[in-house]
């Protein structure tokens, strides 16, 4: 339906030749932008509903009250995926977890997955690569949190926290009662959830347009197989190079996915592309600066190092199996 609309606008309304570069690029742009914004809106609503009923405080209380035998890593990671990530919230959240006595590794599992799998990335992935690739991306993001968190948890990193964080007393009882006891019905909550979803869409709309515009231009003009020569799967350094290049980059998922989409269409292996995406979205310098408030530089280095390594491994793995 969206395709028909885009066809009609570009080819009939504007009267641009359907076989021309301009026609193709414009059509691709219109179709993708519309589709992705609609997707983003609905995914944000679904995540909003989940978050309204399972706030992060509830997860923490749950993790504290039950013995989980390793399942806590998975739970924390899944929660990281479904909660909207806001970098300004990551410090209070980190403290809230540590203070409650949740193991550092479980806290890391959450911290790893939270930026990696978010509503914007998921919407962009479905729109650009389809459901199957999105499922792979989400599953590997969650797995990365579990494995990364588990390994970091085994490393005895508590001494590397900032001094003031170490001094925080573990106090499990002080705050469990602090729930927002909202007894509002679903229908009463829906308007504010829809409103929040709309805000998310409005916040990234410009990046989606820029990303897709760049993608559309490349889509129409870059010849097939163009990148194959330089970043093919058979070169061993392709994945590590892509990931290391991506770590210091801090691009909005909304702007980067459409570009990656074109890279893949023109010959870059999917595993390399996914690894690149994960490194761009999951690890960034602004995040590191924030984390400096609660961790020593050494700990941030270990944290980023472990994740980088696992992203590289998963990229190579995907290149083999996909």
């Amino acid at each position, binding site marked *: 339906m969206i395709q028909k609309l885009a066809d009609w606008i570009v080819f009939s309304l504007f009267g641009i030749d359907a076989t021309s570069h301009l026609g193709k690029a414009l059509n691709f742009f219109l179709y993708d932008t519309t589709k992705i914004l609609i997707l983003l809106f609905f995914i944000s609503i679904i995540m909003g509903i989940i978050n309204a009923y399972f*706030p*992060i*405080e509830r997860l*923490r209380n749950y993790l504290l009250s039950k013995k989980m035998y390793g399942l806590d890593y998975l739970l924390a990671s899944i929660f990281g995926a479904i909660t909207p990530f*806001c*970098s*300004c*919230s990551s*410090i*209070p*959240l980190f*403290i*809230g*977890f540590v*203070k409650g006595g949740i193991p550092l590794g479980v806290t890391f599992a959450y911290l790893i997955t939270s930026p990696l799998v978010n509503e914007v990335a998921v919407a962009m992935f479905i729109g650009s690569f389809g459901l199957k690739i999105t499922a792979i991306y989400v599953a590997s993001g969650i797995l990365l949190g579990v494995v990364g968190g588990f390994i970091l948890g085994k490393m005895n990193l508590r001494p590397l926290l900032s001094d*003031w964080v170490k001094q*925080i007393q573990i106090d499990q009882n*002080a*705050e469990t009662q*602090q729930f*927002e006891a909202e007894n509002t019905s679903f229908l009463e909550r829906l308007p*504010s959830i829809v*409103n*929040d979803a709309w*805000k998310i869409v409005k916040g990234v709309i410009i990046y989606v347009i820029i990303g897709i515009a760049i993608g559309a231009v490349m889509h129409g003009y870059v010849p097939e197989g163009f990148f194959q020569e330089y970043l093919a799967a058979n070169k061993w350094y392709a994945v590590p190079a892509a990931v290391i290049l991506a770590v210091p980059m801090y691009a909005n998922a909304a702007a980067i996915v459409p570009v990656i989409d074109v890279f893949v269409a023109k010959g870059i292996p999917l595993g390399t592309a996914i690894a690149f995406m994960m490194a761009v979205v999951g690890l960034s310098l602004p995040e590191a600066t924030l984390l400096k*408030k609660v961790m020593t530089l050494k700990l941030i280095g270990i944290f980023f190092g472990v994740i980088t390594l696992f992203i590289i491994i998963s990229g190579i793995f995907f290149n083999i199996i996909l």
Partner: protein
Amino acid sequence: MEIKILGSGCAKCKSLYEITKQAVEALGIEANLVKEEDMMKIISYNVMRTPAIVIDEKVVSQGKEHTVESAKKLIQSLL
């Protein structure tokens, strides 16, 4: 009453401060509005999601954006 907006200076926190200010003015009540950006103090309220609203030392909202209307309602419920 004393109203504190907790948040480490992100865009959402700033917008919540403005919205709360408008809500207080619209209600025409006497309230001392404070912007709390010190991370240590924010943490002392056991808040895990910012921005948060603290009214008379009690956390009444966290991790949520408000409209002037919903902020008014929230304040009124505690008057």
